[in-house]
């Protein structure tokens, strides 16, 4: 399978802080690549660096064989990367419908069909179509944020801790949606919930202190008790 996105030895500074100090990994087309690591390891910053929100000071990000390291965020997004941030980034005073409308870059028949498909995937959104984003539950906000990133036929989705703060039943729904989206697109997932991560992840990249420690197949990590204990505090 071809490599869709390649992150090569990126370093990112935020203000005076040197946050990422050598993150590297690849996302292959059609796979779910999971970024793992403790709180504060640099997972969110890695996604933001890919999106150009906190651009890398050195290293390269390559998407579809093109360097995007220094590109503006809106170019990166319209090139086909959808972003579901850790805080979901819902526009609170806009309705569900409006949140999706802001995201939709086209409004032709294909786009409307796409919207129908996305709403089948997230039926709750249809139910709360006219409700303000700020009044949705945590799970509904997560669904809306994923739908919004997915609605433009993105080639790659970056999803940051979708299970955070959600009840187990809701997590199950979110997971099902991700499995469904995986059929259509490539996904980079940040996930602290290891059970969830290991169930839907194909590959993993372990980040610690702003650096890639190890990458490989998820099935290998599941069996590597040492790695899990040392970096994830489990096992």
């Amino acid at each position, binding site marked *: 399978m071809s490599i869709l996105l390649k992150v090569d030895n990126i370093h990112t500074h935020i203000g005076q802080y040197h946050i990422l100090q050598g993150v590297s990994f690849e996302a292959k087309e059609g796979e779910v690549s999971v970024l793992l690591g403790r709180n504060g390891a640099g997972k969110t910053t890695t996604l933001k660096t890919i999106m150009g929100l906190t651009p890398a000071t050195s290293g390269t990000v390559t998407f579809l064989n093109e360097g995007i390291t220094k590109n503006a*965020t809106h170019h990166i997004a319209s090139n086909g990367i959808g*972003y579901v941030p850790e805080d979901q980034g819902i526009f609170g005073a*806009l309705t569900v419908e409006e949140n999706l409308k802001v995201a939709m870059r086209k409004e032709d028949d294909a786009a409307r069909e796409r919207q129908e498909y996305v709403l089948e995937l997230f039926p709750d959104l249809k139910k709360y179509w006219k409700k303000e984003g700020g009044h949705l539950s945590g799970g509904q906000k997560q669904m809306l944020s994923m739908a919004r990133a997915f609605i433009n036929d993105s080639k790659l989705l970056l999803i940051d801790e979708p299970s955070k703060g959600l009840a187990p039943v809701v997590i199950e729904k979110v997971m099902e949606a991700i499995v469904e989206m995986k059929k259509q697109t490539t996904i980079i997932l940040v996930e602290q919930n290891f059970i969830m991560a290991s169930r839907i992840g194909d590959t993993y990249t372990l980040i610690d202190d702003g650096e890639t420690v190890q990458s490989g197949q998820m099935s290998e990590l599941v069996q590597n008790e040492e790695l899990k204990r040392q970096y994830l505090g489990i096992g």
Partner: protein
Amino acid sequence: MELIINLLINGLATGMLIFLLAAGLTLIFGLMDVLNFAHGGLFAWGAFSGVWFYGLTNSFTVAIIGAILTGIVLGFITEKLIITPVYGNHIQQILITLGFMIVLSEMLKVVFGPNQLAAKTPPLLSGSWEIGDVIIIKYRLFIIIVGLIVFGVFQFILKRTKIGLIVRAGVMNKEMVQALGINIKQVFLYVFMAGAALAALGGALMAPYSGVVYAEMGMEFAILAFIVVVIGGMGSFPGSLLAAILVGLAGSFMAYYVPALSLAVNMMLMAIVLIFRPQGLFTAKG
């Protein structure tokens, strides 16, 4: 009773003029996080160019359109030259826009001469209606109606169009808007130009109302507009209308009943609002 109605109409008319200035300011601040102290300069340019176009063509419609176009052009230049280099830095914004305000004022004197100009009211809008004992000055009513129309049009754009949605979303979360593939810098420019157009329209409408235009008029109104932005809630369009009306009415009634307080009343209003609702009457951040 006639007195009350007169004060009411005066207050509303002044309020609408302040609103035209504050509407741009609040969107520019809410969306772009830019403190624009040059906004009053655009108002004054609107006033002068309106008078100039009126003198040239004898058509008030042309005067208004000319003033709006002047505002749009100046808004474009200001955003590109003055604002773009200082995004994200409030101190620099205050310094450079205050400086530019002075430049705009001085340029008025260069272009139109150092003295104040007299502004005529178009014949169609001159005079007044008498309804019983109540005398309604036509031009003031005209200002109120124009203000309401502008509010309606912009409210429609903000609520019902894609660009309006993007602006509202941008006020709430700029990063996310960009992450959805939208070039927010482009949107900033449009909003700035729209704000400048409103300010210039305000100035052009102000001219016949006050009878004269002078370079410093922009600064005087800008201060009121800043107070309105704070009272209404930064970034809130309806908030700026409501607050502008409040400030206009308070000024009008105080000037009659307690003249000594007519200048202080705006500060008092702002202080009261800040004590009970520090975020302003409305919030746009959602």
